[in-house]
């Protein structure tokens, strides 16, 4: 690879990283490098400074669970999430989705923070984290703040992250006893990114759906929030017919700007949004027991 010339600095702390970013508008954070480096390789990105956060301990504290909240440090890799006992138990669809990212090499290097910051519509984690109502903890020159994932991503690789801000961790609510969740993905045969990825969570009490949350990735420039799907389900018994109907309602949540490329047309993506939402719902209901 022959990227253009770039300075490189290794940050020792979040504070130092933020300072470096604040001092250079063209600087970029380097985490796992599995989205940034491919862009630099093709000279589609040419940052003047790379701020390597890979050695910042505060960003690499792994995964913990306190008071029903799972906290995932931003440098946690997809492989770590996929194999974490905490995540497998308390947010199984996140573990499932992390295990479907790319291939082993990508999962061993790519990080959850980088994945969110990159905001690629074909990514798996933003979809799942949207359905889970996760929040992102961000630190910048002015201090720290927290944001809900669904508001964070604004469009095609666009988000609310300032050029001098850093994602420090992600918080996800641990699953309830009656809650089931699942992620269903149609992978691109070359990249293995999601052509369409559907994340569904349902809570069932006494045979009735009491809460539901659905998000679909790959169809629009940011994850589609399946509020019509959820509305369709809540208060009803999760019969096959009800799930069919609810899944079909994802079309109401999809706007006019549907993504399209040589592999999947708009029509196809929309149709698959229904199919994969249905599949995710079916598994989620099964898991909710």
């Amino acid at each position, binding site marked *: *690879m*022959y990227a*253009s*010339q770039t300075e490189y600095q290794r940050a020792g702390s979040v504070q130092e990283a933020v300072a470096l970013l604040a001092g250079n508008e063209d600087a970029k954070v380097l985490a796992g490098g599995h989205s940034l480096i*491919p862009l630099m390789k*093709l000279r589609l990105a040419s940052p003047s400074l790379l701020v390597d956060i890979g050695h910042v301990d505060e960003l690499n504290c792994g995964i913990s669970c306190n008071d029903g909240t799972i906290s995932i440090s931003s440098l946690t890799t997809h492989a770590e999430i996929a194999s974490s006992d905490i995540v497998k138990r308390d947010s199984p669809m996140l573990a499932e989705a992390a295990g479907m990212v790319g291939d082993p090499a990508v999962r061993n290097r790519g990080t959850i923070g980088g994945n969110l910051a990159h905001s690629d519509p074909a990514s798996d984690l933003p979809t799942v984290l949207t359905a889970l109502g996760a929040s992102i903890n961000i630190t910048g020159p002015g201090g720290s703040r927290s944001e809900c994932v669904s508001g964070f991503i604004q469009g095609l690789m666009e988000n609310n992250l300032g050029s001098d801000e850093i994602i420090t961790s992600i918080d996800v609510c641990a699953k309830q006893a009656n809650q089931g969740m699942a992620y269903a993905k*149609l992978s*691109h*045969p*070359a*990249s293995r*990114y999601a052509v369409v990825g559907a994340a569904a969570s349902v809570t069932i009490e006494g045979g009735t759906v009491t809460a539901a949350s659905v998000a679909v990735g790959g169809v629009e420039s940011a994850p589609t929030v399946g509020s019509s799907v959820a509305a369709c389900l809540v208060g009803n018994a999760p019969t096959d017919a009800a799930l069919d109907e609810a899944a079909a309602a994802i079309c109401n949540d999809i706007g006019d700007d549907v993504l399209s490329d*040589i*592999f*999947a*047309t708009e*029509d*196809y993506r929309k*149709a*698959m949004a229904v*199919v994969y939402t249905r599949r995710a719902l079916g598994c989620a209901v099964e898991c909710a027991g």
Partner: protein
Amino acid sequence: MTTRIFGSGIRRREDPRLITGRASYTDDIRLPGTVHAAILRSPYAHANITSIDTSAAACQPGVIAVYTGADIEGHLNPIPCAWHIPDSNLIMPDHPAIAKDKVRYVGDAVAVVVAENRYQAEDALEHIDVDYEPLDATINPKASTMDGAPQVHDDVPNNIAFKWTVAGGEIDEAFEKADVVVKDTITLQRLIPNAMEPRSAVAQYVAATGNLTLWATTQNPHIARFLSSVVTGVGEHKVRVIAPEVGGGFGSKIPYYADEAITSFCAMQLGVPVKWTETRSENYQATIHGRDHVEELEMAATNDGEILGLRTTVYAGLGGYLSTAAPGVPTILHGLMYSGAYHIPAVHGDIYGVFTNATPVDAYRGAGRPEATTLVERLVDLVAAETGIDPVEVRRRNLIEAFEENQDVSTGIVYDSGDYEAALDKAVDHIGYADLREKQAAMRAEGKHIGIGVCSYVEICGLGPSQVAGAVGFQGGLWESAIVRFHPTGKVHVMIGSSPHGQGEETTFAQILAGELGVPVDDVDVIHGDTDNTPMGWGTYGSRTTAVSGAAIALASRKIKDKATTLAAHLLEADAADIEYDDGKFFVKGSPDEHKTIQDIALMANVAWDMPEGMDPGLEASAFYDPPNFTYPFGTHIAVVELDTTTGQIELKKYVAVDDCGVQINPMIVEGQVHGGVVQGTGPVLWEGAVYDDDGQLLTGSLLDYAMPRADNFPDIEVLSNTTASPHHPLGVKGIGEAGTIASTAAVYNAAMDVLRPLGVNSVDMPLTPTKVWQAINQAQNGG
């Protein structure tokens, strides 16, 4: 023990270094003082160059030189095409190594920067100012022949580089008397070969001696030397080409490329070694692609499924220029195989070679034969569907009966030996074909969809008789030579002109020595890839290395055995007629205990203390092998796929391959070749293909978009074989390098069309991606 090594599946001796990263490739060559080249490539598919300003680039840090098309004039001859197919009105427009006035595909070289390091060279490329006047581009091979299509070359009307016809039998009569005529149009899309190692070249020119040395990623160093000499003007005796380890080629490293010429030119201008290595993105644009056929097909048959005739019109895309072997691929290697494994009394194919504004196309694993096999086998399945006869039965009714020697077919070639039905039987038995068809029907009733695809193939391999090469316009011979040299300690060097690059011949050729002379395989080293220390040869491609080079080694070994017998007789004080040979030992008939080993004889021959009167010292022989005919491996493959009708996804569920490649020197290597070939041939059916937009931009420009087949896409590939020796080959071998690719595209494609037919879908272009399949199903359900 040792003799049995020939024919056994011993491990590949090349693997430890290859899989532990200890092999040394062209890019690993580090000569003192090396400078680095980067090539500026056209971002336009078709454009006039109105001006180029390199002045800013020339003053960038580290830049040593910048050259354009004007600078190479008078120094580099055009890049030649080396397959001048006859009776085709072939037009061969000039192919300058660096475009000067016009660019003809995205990736066409426009300028080269040489700098102290590659980063500086890449940076400087951004400072070259080129003014382009964009022109309309033409990409589809058929559309490119239409009146009004953009002209790629001014002197090639309708972009038709050649029209070549294959004809045999009474074609009109066949179609007149047919009960059924089936027709289809299929596309064998452009494929990107994707060798793991990108191309690379290191050139060194020593002005004091006038010697040019080129380390290069080539499958055929002697051809590269020949063409280097033609292009650079350096005498062939002053050019040395070295192919170090070559990390896969699949045909893409047969051609002599502009890039090698440019690198050589820079080295000659600057007097220091110059290195150029392509990036993967560059590989996608500037290394040849494969296939690119639009095939219009029809087959005439009786109601009983007897095939009467086959007619095609094929538009074969060639890209912007004629690559080294390009014209021969869709013609000689394609049209001559239209009879497949069958009696087809009449064939007629009109094949157009067409310039387009895309990367040049040349031989890619299978080269012409997957394109032929797929069309024949598709038509056979259509006859089956039309007559209501099972596809296996239609094949059975038309297969050529077993023959031991010389079977003429209507395309005019002569198959060497075959038992096609035995291969079909074995595949059908192994997979339980009849049960599978029942299961298919039962599953369909439950809303599950599986498809079964059969392919019975014959391929033309072991290229080939040099006289035929000449007759079909190949600008070279196709023989091979080998030198087998015994050293005093009995260790052996085998030097060959072909150039294995991953196929395993370092192992199989040692096995030939073991078989012929009882030498332990570890005592044999196979030397290849350097024109200065190997005998002339035409290279490794076309499943020819074992079939042709291997034969030369066997013949050289037999000469050595003759000499060793005479020497043994002398040492044992016996008559040569009384000497017997067994497993590396020479002895007088009846007294095997008092023997001379081949190692004893090698020592004596080398020290030459006690030689028979008139016998030269040394124990070595060279042999040339020019095959009397091609070899024709064959077999039957059966694929089973499953379709998810809601998503349009097709999954390969089962695959059985029965191949007959003649005598097998190493069955494990045969199996490996079949595995790789099947995977490579399946890719284009389900996932793989180069896509250009109407402006000639390559949309599948990286591995993120270009879908290569992967291990988890495949079930176990079940590999079986039969052995029908080639009657004319000294070892009875035929070749197995391409069989998997040749058979699998047709088998998987037929399986996919088999699953789609009951849904009313009769045509989907490859690759059958989920979107296309889903759309086709929807269209059929909505009444087309």
